[in-house]
């Protein structure tokens, strides 16, 4: 949110050329900060080195057997002892790493070669190619992998390489799906459209925009598939379905398991090698994923900077009663004094709302106006006690009908929500649970908190929908959220807010997501509810037109503070605070229409224009 708090008016402000440099942490350094990731990487490097240097490091040839020494314990020549056939365990372990890693490498390579290019084309081009490829992929995914592997061994011969090649084919769909999904997402991004409009060729767009995004998930998936390949290969060897005499970890495990009674120690080394290698692959993959989410996190989280909401209350410090209350007598319905809201804990707490005073009387509509990041929504959430996770009230007092609500415990506050103070959110669609019908989600609080019977709740729901001017409420109650329009959804949400017959409505940008014609209808509805029921409304908005239409009084917020407060006419006509003046000045209502176009006297020089 700090980003949008920045001063925007580049043209009028002296500090036009100052940009706040966000900490830019590279993926690489983020990765190095993960101890498990570093450990996993180190193990992998060691195993690869051991495999490469096996001929140098191994005390003897892995298949040299000396039955006289079978099951012999560690000696200087054989640091890990000898197996049931008197072969050196360390040598077999080192050479086994070659087969194991090589096989896994082959499987991953085959899967990459088959899966990634097809996924790229299917995701980018879509259409017919996508249809055919997806059908093939579903076919391969329906194959019973184990049976195919075993059968292919019977057909193609008993070598690790054949098995791993077949496995590569079998897991290729996972790369296809991953690539296709990521590419299709990127394909829909506006910046790819912009690149196309800029005249870049498809090859260039894929190179510049698509590969970058797809690269990391593929590396992660490759590490995971590598781990699975190693496990599967060892499993097959363990069953004795491997490649005969080649030393492998799986075969060693099998041999050790058969002699478990006689020499239980033999199982340790191959088991450890196998466990450590595949675990380190997974650790590397997950550390890489975390690093990417940390470093490039802005990609996903950019739109909604709001911290996560939680259904469980997080323990927060008790608010300190504010001594610095204003002298204005406290409003009858809602009164906020010296409210401060912060995110984070003690040391790095960031205060986003500072000493806010607000009053709403019965039947009064008070606007809370500000730009994004001004703290207006946080103020509204504090009144309801539904701040997102990590946010808490640090100071101040909030009374509803004279009762201090900040001192109430969560359970007691919950009884106020819906029945005394209700909430109308901004985005109508995302605020309805898509998995329930309109009727059932409106009925739920009626039954759960007001204890109505099923029948009575349904009757009340229909009545509520009628009150928000929905025609045919019986039918609408049976619909799911995705079957209704945005304007209708906002009416449903207002009906939901009215269901507990509240006295105060907190409406957070209730019309921002709506078209102007629908907005006008919703504003009329809110006005009617106020007139008929004497409802008090705290209306959070950035739209001064909405304020002028609906509000009796208005408070202007900037950077977490209320900078001006007064009747609507007073604030909009004679703003006093410089910020309010700027805000009102930016409204284009009174700006003159642009004059009609006239042919230019001379054609402007294009080259000059671009310089």
């Amino acid at each position, binding site marked *: 949110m700090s980003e949008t708090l920045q001063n925007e008016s580049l043209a009028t402000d002296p500090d036009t050329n100052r*940009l706040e440099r966000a900490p830019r942490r590279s993926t690489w350094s983020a990765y190095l900060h993960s101890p498990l990731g570093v450990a996993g990487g180190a193990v992998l490097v060691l195993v690869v080195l051991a495999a490469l240097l096996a001929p140098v490091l191994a005390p003897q040839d892995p298949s040299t057997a000396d039955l006289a020494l079978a099951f012999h314990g560690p000696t200087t020549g054989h640091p890990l002892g000898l197996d049931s056939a008197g072969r050196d365990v360390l040598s077999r372990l080192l050479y086994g790493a070659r087969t194991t890693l090589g096989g896994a490498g082959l499987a991953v390579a085959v899967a990459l070669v088959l899966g990634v290019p097809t996924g790229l084309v299917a995701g980018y081009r879509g259409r017919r190619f996508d249809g055919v490829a997806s059908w093939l992929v579903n076919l391969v995914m329906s194959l019973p992998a184990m049976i195919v592997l075993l059968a292919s061994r019977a057909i193609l011969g008993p070598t690790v390489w054949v098995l791993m090649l077949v496995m590569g084919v079998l897991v290729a769909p996972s790369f296809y799906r991953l690539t296709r999904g990521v590419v299709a997402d990127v394909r829909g991004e506006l*910046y790819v459209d912009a690149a196309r409009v800029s005249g870049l060729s498809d090859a260039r767009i894929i190179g510049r925009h698509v590969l970058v995004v797809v690269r990391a998930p593929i590396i992660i998936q490759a590490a995971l598939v590598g781990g699975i390949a190693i496990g599967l290969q060892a499993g097959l060897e363990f069953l004795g379905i491997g490649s005969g005499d080649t030393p492998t970890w799986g075969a060693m495990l099998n041999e050790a398991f058969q002699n478990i009674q006689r020499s239980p120690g033999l199982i340790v080394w191959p088991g450890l090698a196998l466990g450590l290698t595949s675990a380190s692959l997974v650790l590397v993959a997950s550390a890489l994923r975390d690093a990417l989410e940390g470093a490039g996190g802005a990609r996903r989280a950019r739109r909604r900077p709001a911290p996560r909401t939680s259904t469980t209350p997080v323990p927060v410090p008790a608010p300190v009663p504010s001594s610095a209350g204003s002298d204005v007598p406290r409003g009858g319905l809602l009164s906020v004094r010296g409210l401060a809201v912060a995110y984070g804990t003690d040391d790095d707490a960031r205060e986003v709302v500072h000493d806010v005073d607000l009053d709403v009387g019965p039947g009064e509509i008070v606007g809370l106006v500000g730009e994004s990041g001004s703290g207006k929504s946080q103020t509204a959430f504090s009144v309801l006690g539904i701040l997102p996770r990590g946010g808490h009230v640090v100071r101040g007092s909030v009374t509803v009908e004279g009762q201090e609500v900040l001192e109430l415990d969560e359970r007691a506050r919950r009884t106020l929500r819906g029945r005394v103070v209700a909430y109308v959110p901004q985005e109508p669609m995302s605020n309805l649970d898509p998995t329930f019908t309109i009727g059932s989600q409106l009925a739920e609080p009626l039954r759960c908190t007001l204890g109505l019977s099923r029948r009575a709740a349904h009757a009340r729901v229909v009545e509520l929908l009628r009150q928000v001017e929905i025609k045919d409420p019986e039918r609408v109650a049976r619909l799911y959220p995705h079957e209704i329009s945005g304007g209708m959804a906002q009416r449903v949400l207002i009906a939901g807010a009215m269901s507990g017959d509240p006295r105060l409505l907190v409406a957070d940008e209730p019309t921002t997501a709506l078209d102007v014609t629908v907005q006008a209808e919703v504003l009329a509805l809110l006005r009617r509810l106020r007139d008929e029921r004497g409802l008090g409304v705290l209306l959070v908005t950035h739209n001064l037109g909405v304020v002028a239409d609906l509000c009796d009084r208005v408070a202007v917020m900037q950077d977490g503070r209320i900078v001006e407060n007064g009747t609507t006419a007073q604030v909009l006509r004679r703003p006093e605070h410089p910020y309010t003046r700027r805000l009102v000045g930016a409204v284009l209502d009174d*700006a003159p229409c642009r004059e009609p176009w006239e042919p230019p006297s001379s*054609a402007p020089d294009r080259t000059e224009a671009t310089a």
Partner: protein
Amino acid sequence: MSTASNAPGTPLLEVHDLHVTFPGKGWRAAGREVLHGVDLDVRPGETLGLVGESGSGKTTIGRAVLGLAPIASGRVLLAGEDITDTGRRRRRALARDLQVVFQDPYTSLNPSLLVGDTLAEPLLGQGVTPRDARARVAGLLDRVGLPRDAATRLPREFSGGQRQRVAIARALAVGPRLVVCDEPVSALDLTTQETVLELLLEIQRDSGVSYLFISHDLAVVRYLSHRVAVIHDGRIVENGPTRDVVEHARDPYTRRLLLSAPVADPDEQRIRRERLAAVRGASGDVAA
């Protein structure tokens, strides 16, 4: 474009009887026609404001002109040349004349690309060498009022308004004749919106570029456009000089749209509200 520069007054962009149909989901599913025969034109140096509500098809018009939406029938002409169904190569060359600024400054810039690289993109598309492209980036940043060191930063280090300046700079890089602006200020705060609009006006005054300015906000359109076209359900219902449309709208939908947007003055808004109620009552229009 090397074709003869057209005489003043003749349109730069012409759209005739444009139909756009999006394919249905799944095979055999019927397509959905979102534009039912749209006609419009934009003259050199002119701004045509295109106003409509969500789902009206206003964005689709812009995308069809840019070659990003499937045109079922009709013609699109740029400076007299038919660009309805151009090949990929010609479409790429068109980028020199035709550019775009999208609504969402967050998704219209690649988050992992430095701003300098984003700005160089259209230049690279025109065959400019990477070195020359980089040299021209600094000038572009100056042009839109951003510091020069912005080139070496990632988009997430910028606010929404600053990102939109980057997007405008990208559109200007090749000196286009027409820029399609798709809701370029609707994601911005009020005060930021004002400065970005000023920038667009200034650029037009200096370079004589034409804008097809798409927006849902009549106040913004009125401020920026020489002429306004109102689109409703895939059809243009009103088209004329801005003042005529604003003051003497003939179409009932346009009148309702005009009255629906609240103004920031309580008394004036009360009058408008009553007039709107009268209009709605007259047309027998009740909520869904």
